[in-house]
């Protein structure tokens, strides 16, 4: 049974995203929300680590938070899927537990 992990802080100031990725199991999902959406930026210093994790986990970005911060699709890693709050709800339902990386 899989886990939905949520990350709400930028990986450039906070270790939460990288720690989260190191604790994911295959089949888990990681949803970036609030300032966490910056973790999906292509070409950043963490993009490599994030891309590597896509082998085992599915990466989601909360669209509203990305738009608020001016992150268009072309700035974001191609493996990341954008969802709205309704998609966030679906992810919580689809995974057995939700773990917030604060």
């Amino acid at each position: 049974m899989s886990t939905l992990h949520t990350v709400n802080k930028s990986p450039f100031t906070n270790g939460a995203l990288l720690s989260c990725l190191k604790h994911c199991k295959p089949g888990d999902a990681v949803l970036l929300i609030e300032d966490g959406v910056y973790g999906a930026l292509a070409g950043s210093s963490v993009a490599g680590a994030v891309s590597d994790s896509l082998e085992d986990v599915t990466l989601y970005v909360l669209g509203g938070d990305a738009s608020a911060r001016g992150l268009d699709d072309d700035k974001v890693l191609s493996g990341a899927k954008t969802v709205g709050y309704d998609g966030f709800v679906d992810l919580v339902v689809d995974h057995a537990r939700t773990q917030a990386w604060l």
Partner: protein
Amino acid sequence: MSEGPYTHQAADTAYQFVKSALAKGHEVPRVFFYHDGVNVSSRLSVPPQDERHIQKNWSALAQEHGIDLVVCIAAAQRRGLLDANEAERQGKDANNIAEGFRISGLGQLIEMGIQTDRLVTFGD
């Protein structure tokens, strides 16, 4: 809900999430406010006119959908959020909990972890 209003986005994200969950037909029986999240319950918040009123949004949503908004008593006491009973008990000359929120213990959080299918944390 573990962070205070305005300073952190958590209270807004939680609100949007709960609204979506309800719209999809899910039950949201309780929202538990902890750490600085207890500050969401203050009835004295006066944000600028063109900004969302976080406390009122929560109170209205709770009233419309029968959601139990619980504020942790220990966290609230530390941060100066008191309802009428608590204020009297503590000998304070004012109370500041908004309509729709009630003060209670941490057991209310654990109870929901046991009884519900999913528990989601919004914090920092």
